[in-house]
């Protein structure tokens, strides 16, 4: 056994050393723990790495200190040519940049307000720690930087490291006085980035050649060389909006053929780094310096805006007409127009000529009587150019001139009026209604109805309550349109009015719709009449050509005027409510069965 060990001592030592290192590597590359429990390296590994860093760092720091000291002496005490001029230039540049920064900070504050509305937390660079690079890994495949700041300086793992040009990387290992920075060009690094123009998001990693590239991006023709790439903030390490680099080229992903990799040219010169900034604190608020710049920028911006308005007003005098009347309708001055109430309801403009279809012209439902209907009432003088029917016409309340060729209508007022369902008129006034025809011509002083109906056939229906022919004068058998003058009095009072203006012996009832069974019996009528179907024109039954009869619409203003109900009455065409004269009612009903639609009766 001893001879075996002595004979294969070298090989055994090699095997043991290799086996120990392989086991050590296997332990290090095991599945990582969750982030809250994981560490970049285990305790033992970190100790070995710390020993290595401790061995290498002191000479590096010494050499770096020597070099910095020599360069400092040269730069600070010897190479001072044109320093004063450079100082002036830099001061002016600083003032300009502060103003520019103020404007940018204003936009940032606006974005911050919007993000607060959306409960979106944005991280701003709040505090940075400058550090110097003292070394690298010295290996092509490992993009590691060593800085001279460690845990005692407040550096922690995963802190972003940047320069004034762009992102460098993040802290990987922290030691008491030194730290390791993992560059974005390392294959094991990762950063959430977004292409500034095309807004394509991706993960930035270094490839085998040490070039950062956005991995596995969907092919997009919009990706062009030179497009800026910034951090997206989605990795929770780098703040959003830091410059990463520019698109260099697009290559096909060898492992995922349809996808492409976007190779990035870093914005920061990673091969010539000397000083970096470690972001040690990121807050949700801007710094006091930025707030001060915001205030200054707001003041400058408001002054510039006022000045620009004055200059514009002076340079464009022709745009202002001095003779123009002042704008009295300041519609936009209302709070609604100013956007305070964006969701206000849209309302139509006011009607020039209001009618019953005008909004808000219809009375409230609570004021209506069941069964009653709202009918328009016209008044005025209507002169129709058509020849007058044979019967002369006259009106006590209006002027009707027939037999002329000119039509003249002078309505005084046309407002809705409540008409009781029983055919009577409201007591407010008297309505002169046109009639269809009158055989006797006694009531021919009224013009025909403005909406006459053909007098095909008519029948006089006697109602049980004695209303037939007592208060209403229907059209005559001749079929000549005869106006009907009605007064807005209840029908119960029509009996007394019958003596003043006795109804004609024969009347024509214009049935507008199906008749009730009792009314369809022609034998019960006092005389054979012809029903008058509805039509747009009046067709006299006497054989005269159908023509529009002149109508006179008048209203008796006097309440003491005799009530006249002459001529036929038009009823709704739906047949739901025949005229009271057609109904065989034992006694009048106080209310009508249903309310008729507007305009169903003229």
């Amino acid at each position: 056994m001893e001879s075996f060990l002595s004979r294969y001592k070298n090989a055994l030592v090699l095997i043991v050393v290799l086996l120990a290192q392989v086991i050590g590597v296997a332990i290090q590359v095991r599945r990582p723990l969750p982030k809250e429990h994981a560490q970049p390296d285990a305790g033992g590994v970190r100790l070995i790495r710390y020993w290595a860093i401790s061995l290498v760092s002191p000479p590096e720091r010494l050499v770096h200190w020597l070099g910095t000291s020599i360069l400092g002496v040269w730069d600070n005490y010897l190479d001072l040519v044109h320093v004063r001029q450079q100082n002036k230039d830099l001061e002016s540049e600083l003032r300009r940049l502060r103003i520019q920064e103020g404007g940018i900070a204003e936009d940032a504050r606006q974005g911050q307000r919007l993000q607060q509305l959306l409960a979106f937390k944005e991280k701003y660079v709040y505090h940075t720690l400058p550090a110097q690079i003292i070394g690298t890994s010295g290996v092509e495949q490992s993009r590691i930087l060593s800085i001279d700041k460690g845990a005692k300086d407040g550096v922690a793992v995963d802190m972003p490291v940047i320069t004034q040009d762009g992102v460098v990387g993040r802290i990987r290992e922290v030691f008491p006085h030194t730290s390791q920075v993992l560059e974005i060009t390392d294959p094991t690094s990762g950063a959430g980035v977004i292409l500034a123009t095309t807004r394509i998001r991706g993960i930035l990693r270094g490839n085998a050649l040490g070039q950062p590239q956005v991995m596995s991006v969907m092919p997009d023709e919009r990706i062009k060389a030179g497009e800026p790439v910034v951090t997206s903030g989605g990795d929770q390490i780098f703040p959003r909006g830091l410059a990463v680099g520019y698109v260099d080229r697009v290559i096909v992903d060898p492992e995922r053929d349809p996808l492409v990799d976007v190779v990035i040219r870093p914005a920061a010169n990673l091969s010539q780094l000397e000083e970096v900034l470690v972001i040690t604190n990121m807050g949700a608020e801007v710094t006091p310096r930025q707030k001060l710049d915001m205030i200054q920028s707001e003041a400058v911006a408001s002054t510039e805006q006022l000045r620009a308005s004055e200059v514009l007003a002076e340079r464009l005098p022709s745009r202002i007409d001095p003779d123009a009347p002042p704008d009295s309708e300041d519609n936009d001055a209302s709070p609604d127009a100013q956007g305070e109430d964006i969701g206000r309801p849209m309302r139509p403009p006011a009607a020039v000529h209001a009618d019953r279809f005008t909004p808000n012209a219809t009375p409230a439902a609570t004021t209506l009587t069941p069964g009653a209907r709202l009918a328009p009432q016209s008044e005025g003088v209507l002169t129709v150019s058509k020849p007058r029917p044979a019967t002369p016409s006259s009106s006590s309340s209006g002027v009707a001139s027939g037999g002329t060729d000119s039509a003249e209508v002078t309505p005084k007022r046309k407002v809705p009026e409540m008409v009781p369902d029983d055919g009577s008129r409201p007591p407010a006034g008297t309505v002169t209604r046109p009639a269809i025809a009158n055989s006797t011509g006694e009531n021919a002083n009224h013009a025909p109805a403005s909406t006459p109906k053909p007098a095909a056939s008519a029948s006089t229906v006697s109602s049980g309550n004695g209303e037939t022919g007592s208060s209403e004068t229907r059209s005559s058998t001749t079929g000549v349109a005869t106006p009907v003058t009605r007064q807005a009095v209840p029908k119960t009072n029509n009996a007394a009015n019958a003596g003043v203006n006795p109804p004609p012996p024969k009347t024509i009832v214009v049935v507008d719709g199906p008749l009730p069974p009792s009314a369809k019996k022609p034998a019960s009528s006092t005389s054979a009449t012809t029903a008058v179907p509805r039509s747009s024109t009046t067709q006299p039954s006497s054989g005269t050509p159908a023509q529009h009869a002149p109508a006179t619409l008048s209203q008796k203003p006097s309440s003491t005027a005799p009530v006249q109900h002459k001529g036929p009455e038009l009823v709704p065409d739906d047949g739901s409510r025949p005229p009271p004269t057609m109904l065989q009612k034992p006694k009048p009903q106080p209310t009508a069965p249903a309310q008729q639609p507007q305009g169903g009766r003229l």
Partner: protein
Amino acid sequence: MSRLSAAARRDIEVQSYPLILFILVPILALGLQSFVSLHFSRFDMLDLPLLVTIYFAISRRNPVVGTVVGAVIGIAQDGLTRQPLGIFGICKSIIGYLAASLGVRIDTENHGTRALLTFGFFFLHSGMYWLLVRRLLAQPYAWGWIHELVRAVVNTIVSVILFALLDLAKQKEY
């Protein structure tokens, strides 16, 4: 020129190195590798720790010493990188063992022989490193023959100069 020429085998057997040299040279190699690469990015083509490992292995002609020296230098080099400790350690352990084993059988005091050994060991080192990184760690590694050839040539040239400088520190023990 005589200082750079290889000595006879009889003289080599009585040569040794001070202990401090075994400590400072690897540290200096690691420091230079790390610091110079910061200012000269192409300096990372060199692998000074590998050259130091080869030198001590072929000079001491002891495989155990070569293995241990290679392991220590390799692990220290791993400590400067982000990769697990042991990758360079494994590679340099094997290189140290092979270099020491060959140093017993061939004359390694000749500069030509040293150059050939360095050229071959560098390719072997790169091959093992690629195998470990690509296959064991499954990490990307771009292998380019031309690039590796250039690196091997550069390291070979530097090794000749470096080995001659280190020969100045030899202590002849008669």
